[in-house]
């Protein structure tokens, strides 16, 4: 009894709406092929007068895209690996190991989610730059030049643990039957072995979801990387590099260049999303709501 007729109205609305969602991306793509004169015409035209590939080449040189890519990849991969490790370790401990303060720890981790990120920008910035005994700093965090911000670690450390990740892994590990673990313990397996050889392989679906989530989030993260860039320009990630190019040079001359850089930096992540969206969507829809 489901309405079977072809839903013309819905199709029209969805296609028009879909066009509005995608058009800005198409415009970004089209204008990345325009030369400065073409781009700065007094009237808008979607297609370039002639397709120029120069912007892509210039973007690689001028923007040091190589460095930006390297930083973005190292930051995203390292953050993802660390979050997977810390979340699954904590998720396992919070569900399958008995110790004093377990419930309190979990409540505390949940409570941290109530604290917005901007609250930590100022103090964490100071802590990073004045990290004791790092980057030439003395025991009191003085005297060095940039402290932790001398290293890429500064881009990664503040994101190494994720309350959302711990929550996700905990919920998943809760569904694993205790009998497996008991059996392994009776066989004399050490707790470390139980975790790495028994539990971790069983959590792969949850790990996949968390990995995509973290990787995309980390790739797109902007504010913290921008702050670290102000201390050490070698730490620029793709979003930071693009934004900086835009603000330092004459915008009217460089906009097509910036567009090319934006295309280069967004295409990989869009592909990651399109191919792995199954896992991403599962994370977004399954954790927020308990049915």
């Amino acid at each position, binding site marked *: 009894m489901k309405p079977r007729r072809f839903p013309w109205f819905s199709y029209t609305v969805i296609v028009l709406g879909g066009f509005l969602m*995608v058009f800005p991306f198409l415009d970004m793509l089209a204008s990345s092929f325009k030369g400065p004169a073409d781009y700065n015409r007094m009237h808008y035209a979607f297609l370039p007068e002639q397709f120029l590939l120069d912007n892509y080449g210039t973007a690689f040189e001028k923007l040091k895209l190589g460095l930006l890519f390297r930083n973005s990849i190292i930051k995203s991969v390292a953050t993802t690996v660390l979050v997977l490790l810390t979340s699954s370790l904590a998720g396992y401990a919070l569900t399958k190991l*008995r110790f004093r303060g377990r419930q309190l720890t979990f409540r505390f981790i949940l409570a941290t989610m109530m604290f917005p990120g901007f609250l930590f920008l100022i103090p964490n910035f100071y802590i990073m730059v004045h990290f004791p005994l790092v980057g030439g700093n003395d025991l009191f965090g003085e005297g060095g030049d940039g402290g932790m911000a001398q290293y890429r670690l500064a881009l990664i450390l503040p994101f190494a643990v994720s309350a959302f990740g711990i929550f996700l892994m905990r919920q998943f590990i809760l569904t694993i039957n205790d009998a497996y673990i008991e059996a392994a313990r009776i066989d004399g397996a050490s707790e470390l072995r139980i975790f790495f050889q028994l539990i971790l392989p069983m959590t792969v679906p949850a790990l996949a979801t968390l990995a995509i989530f973290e990787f995309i989030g980390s790739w797109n993260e902007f504010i913290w990387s921008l702050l670290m860039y102000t201390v050490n320009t070698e730490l620029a990630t793709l979003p930071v590099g693009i934004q900086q190019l835009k603000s330092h040079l004459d915008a009217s001359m460089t906009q097509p260049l910036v567009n090319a850089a934006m295309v280069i930096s967004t295409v990989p992540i869009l592909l990651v999303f399109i191919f792995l969206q199954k896992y991403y969507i599962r994370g977004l829809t399954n954790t927020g709501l308990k*049915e």
Partner: protein
Amino acid sequence: MANKRSKLNRGQALTGYLFLMPVFGFYALFFLIPLLFSLYLSFTEWGGFDLSLIKWVGLDNYRELFREGSPFLNPIIKNTFVFAFGTVLLSFFIALAVSYMITRLKYEGFWRTLYFLPTVTTIVAIGNVWLYLYNPTNGVINEVLRKLGLQTVRFLDDPSTALASIIVVGGWLGIGSSVLILSAGLKAIPEDYNEAAMLEGAGLWALYSKITLPLLKPSILFVLITSFIGGLQSFTLSLVMTKNGGPGNSTNVGGLEMYNQAFNYGNWGTASAMAFVLFVIIFAVTLLQLAVFRRGGVESY
């Protein structure tokens, strides 16, 4: 036996603490210490470099924020709420319609991906692309307006349209994740309900308002609450599109003002006080909405 048991438990407890070590270390270093440090800073005047130059000023920073005529209250906090309300309203109603429609179309996954693309794109790209779309001389929106015989709108340069322009981008950005959650909620509604009602001769609108909407309520509340809280916290879009919340303070929001006070003007004390005021506001809103959440029949974690 009892001895062995307690040894086992001790081993488990030790492993538990060991496994949680990274988490404890992290929250000590990047949560507790920073929280206390910035709470302290909010009672001081400080430029952010030399710790020995910190000057205790008591409640002065907070007094300054709440004094009469303070730009922080009006327009900055006001803008923050307008931005959150605006983006939520815009993205919610569009997402409600879109999710309802795509669940009854073929290639649902494809349409959902289209609407979700902005969510997985860096805000830097989003902001810059929209800057060009809004451009008064050669942006596409003004080109369309001109074709329609309307006047050029200086979207982001005009204080009366600037905030609305950013809200449109924020709303556009938020549609995807709301569609995702709402369509997951829609699919959880058993088809029998609709069929039974249709056999009774209920029309489409009756179906939607009497069956779909009430059953979708948990998802709706979840979407509204999380996006509203997200909207109150968000400031990167304003940073990318306007830098300092201009023209004037017309697009300035709480997070952005805090960011600029600390990292552009070197007023770390003032900025920390702003961060805490904002935090308390967001916390209060969250608690209020969680109460609504529970009464709305959703179990929260």
